């Protein structure tokens, strides 16, 4: 082969090699472009064809009462939207939609004529309406699901619960306070779709950035809350009052069982109510408590040992000049004991006790009872109230404070202070949220009863409690608060309000209050009733006490509290014996409750023979004798343990066996 030929062959080889190299290079470059440079974009296009994303609307946790009844529930409802650019016959579409959605045609048409790609027509409509709209099959009109909050109990506990807005955010009350727990994240489900758009493989939902929803369990008892609200509302309506509050608390734990506020609102349609009706006035509004303060004056004076229940004071026959002003009593009293001063609510007597105790010491006790400081309740917007310092209090201001004027308190502070007396002198921290659980039911947070401080000794608390039972007796200021079968202790208050125009105490505007607890021997409930500006008769004992009675008897029945047999006979028997007290010459009130004595009297004698009695008879007789009856079997009584004829003083409980007759 010639050299020339060889050279030519080599060149051709190089050309071919170069050609292949170029081809390979192009392929590699294209592969790089597709796999690396345009990776995300192309993957996106491909995924769009394969994957579909289902967006689940953000969830919101439920709220339950203490017995697990739903107070706030979120469900998914339809919302109608439109793509205005896709709609050809806008007026026709508007007419069709307006018929179903019951919205004016003009407003719908206006929305459809907007130059936007997306408009909401109506959000959160009922499932029936959603079905009707989807049946229309309108072009350019669609339905999407959104979460909507419902409050099945409507007005019940509305002020506590608050409400949440259209975008699933808490706006008021507990909904706002616990928004971070209640709000859940938006979930996305990714699934692969076939050519017909049917999903055939759902991926696990991507874990949301924030934790899922939590559910709240409240200390509120739906039944008690209902009765509190209903009784309060009817009292406010009857007295044509401006409003009112009713708070029910368990004194041993500080749990708030009910918190009713009038005027009411329905959180399902909150926007149709005035914003001032949304406020939970039981914690956000302060008022002058009036004579209810005498219970705390008595506690402080007894604790400090400056008086005893039987210490007597001259009550100046109804008029007493102090600090250049004349203070009046409703009745003209001469000499009253300390117990009587509280039971009959003598302002002059209270001033005299207060003067003996001293303003500073009284203020110290009031602060210990929790006045003028926030209770620390887990509710929004709590106010602290106000007490004048010794430096700023004139003689008349000091005198006023002894009967509860010239200071301010919230309903919650007042009820908690009374709960401290009921709880043997220990002040508890009030709370509403009992427990927070996650979606899987695991407990995240739990609130336990918390003692704030001991205010007065157990002995003083019991003495004060027994004196306060006189308030609901025939001679007290609130016989209407008495609950048959149960001992009740409490205190009324009728406070004058400041007239904002004259800046002086009004002679027409009052706040009528009753705060008390029941059963006295083992308090289960502390109930506060406040009626704001009742028309006509404004006394706490006449206006607020009946609400206490209604709520108390309902709640005790609901809590399955057993009535004391000794208190059933004479209605008010068991209240402090004060039959012989007359307004002018009051005789000392017997302080000790008579519950025990009556029970002991009934226990005299021997255990009867229960055999051949029916269950109802046995139970009635057993209760009349003050015995615990344990029933076994059914039918008629055939045997009992202990045997009949035993001394009743030695028997506490009796076990009775029943058998059906004829066997």
């Amino acid at each position: 082969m010639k050299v020339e030929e060889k050279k030519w062959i080599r060149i051709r080889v190089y050309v071919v090699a170069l050609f292949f190299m170029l081809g390979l290079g192009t392929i590699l470059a294209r592969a790089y472009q597709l796999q690396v440079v345009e990776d995300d974009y192309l993957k996106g296009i491909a995924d769009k064809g394969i994957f579909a994303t289902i967006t689940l609307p953000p969830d919101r946790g439920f709220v339950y009462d203490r017995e697990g009844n739903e107070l706030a529930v979120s469900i998914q409802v339809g919302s109608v939207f439109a793509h205005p650019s896709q709609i050809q016959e806008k007026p026709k579409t508007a007419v069709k939609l307006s018929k179903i959605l019951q919205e004016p045609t003009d407003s719908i048409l206006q929305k459809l004529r907007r130059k936007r790609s997306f408009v909401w027509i109506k959000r959160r409509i009922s499932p029936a309406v959603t079905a009707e709209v989807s049946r229309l099959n309108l072009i350019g009109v669609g339905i999407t699901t959104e979460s909507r909050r419902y409050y099945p109990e409507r007005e019940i506990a509305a002020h506590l619960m608050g409400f949440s807005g259209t975008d699933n955010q808490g706006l008021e009350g507990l909904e706002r306070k616990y928004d971070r727990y209640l709000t859940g994240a938006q979930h996305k489900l990714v699934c692969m779709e076939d050519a017909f758009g049917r999903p055939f493989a759902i991926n696990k939902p991507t874990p949301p950035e924030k934790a899922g929803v939590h559910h709240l369990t409240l200390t509120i008892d739906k039944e008690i809350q209902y009765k509190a609200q209903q009784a309060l509302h009817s009292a406010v309506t009857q007295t044509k009052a401006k409003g009112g509050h009713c708070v029910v608390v368990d004194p041993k734990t500080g749990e708030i069982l009910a918190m009713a506020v009038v005027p009411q609102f329905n959180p399902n349609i909150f926007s149709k109510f005035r914003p001032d009706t949304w406020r939970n006035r039981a914690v956000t509004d302060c008022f002058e408590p009036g004579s209810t303060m005498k219970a705390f004056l008595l506690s402080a004076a007894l604790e400090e040992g400056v008086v005893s229940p039987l210490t007597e004071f001259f009550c100046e026959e109804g008029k007493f000049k102090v600090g250049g002003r004349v203070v009046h009593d409703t009745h003209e009293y001469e000499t009253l004991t300390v117990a009587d001063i509280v039971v009959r609510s003598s302002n002059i007597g209270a001033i005299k006790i207060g003067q003996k105790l001293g303003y500073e010491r009284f203020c110290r006790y009031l602060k210990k009872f929790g006045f003028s400081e926030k209770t620390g309740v887990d509710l929004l917007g709590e106010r602290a109230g106000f007490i004048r310092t010794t430096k700023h209090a004139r003689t008349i201001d000091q005198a006023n404070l002894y009967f509860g004027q010239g200071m301010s308190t919230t309903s919650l502070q007042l009820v908690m202070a009374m709960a401290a007396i009921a709880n043997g002198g220990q002040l508890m921290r009030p709370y509403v949220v009992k427990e927070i659980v996650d979606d899987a039911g695991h407990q995240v947070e739990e609130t336990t009863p918390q003692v704030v401080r001991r205010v007065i000794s157990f002995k003083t608390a019991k003495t004060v409690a027994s004196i306060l039972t006189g308030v609901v007796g025939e001679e007290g200021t609130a016989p209407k608060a008495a609950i048959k079968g149960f001992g009740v202790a409490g205190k009324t208050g009728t406070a004058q309000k400041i007239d904002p125009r004259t800046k002086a105490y009004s002679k027409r505007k009052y706040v009528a209050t009753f705060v008390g607890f029941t059963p006295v021997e083992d308090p289960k409930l502390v109930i506060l009733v406040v009626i704001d500006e009742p028309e006509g008769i404004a006394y706490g004992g006449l206006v607020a006490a009946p609400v206490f009675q209604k709520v108390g008897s309902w709640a005790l029945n609901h809590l399955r509290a057993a009535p004391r047999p000794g208190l059933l006979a004479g209605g008010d028997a068991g209240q402090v014996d004060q039959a012989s007290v007359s307004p002018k010459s009051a005789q000392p009130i017997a302080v000790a409750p008579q519950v025990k004595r009556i029970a002991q009297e009934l226990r005299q004698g021997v255990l009867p023979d229960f055999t051949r009695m029916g269950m109802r008879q046995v139970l009635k007789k057993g209760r009349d004798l003050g015995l615990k009856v344990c029933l076994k079997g059914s039918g008629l009584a055939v045997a009992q343990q202990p045997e009949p004829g035993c001394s009743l003083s030695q028997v506490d409980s009796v076990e009775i066996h029943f058998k059906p007759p004829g066997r």
Partner: protein
Amino acid sequence: MTRPEKVNRMKGSRNAHTGIRITNTRSKRRKLPLTPRQVVLILLMLFSFMGSGIGYVWSNFETTQIGYDLSQLKQEEMRLKEINRKLRLELATLKSPKRLEPLAVQRFDLVQPKAEQIIVLP
């Protein structure tokens, strides 16, 4: 070999009827180049390949089918959960004391028990 011998042999090698000469001396009985053991092995491999191929296709098909079922069940689960919520809401609304108390009083003539009628069992 003499000529007549050769002729005779040639005659013998021809078919008596057709006269076509057929020589079978070189033909050998063709033998299978594989042992029976190898055949079994090959058959086994063939079946296993085919089996695995069919299995793969079948499992893919099943996966897709289960995927369809799963996604339907998932949607059903979501639907039932939502119905459950709605029913709970309805129940709560129906159980509201605000509705029940008037019903009990007006329709069934029930009254609040008096204190003396209440006996709490231990």
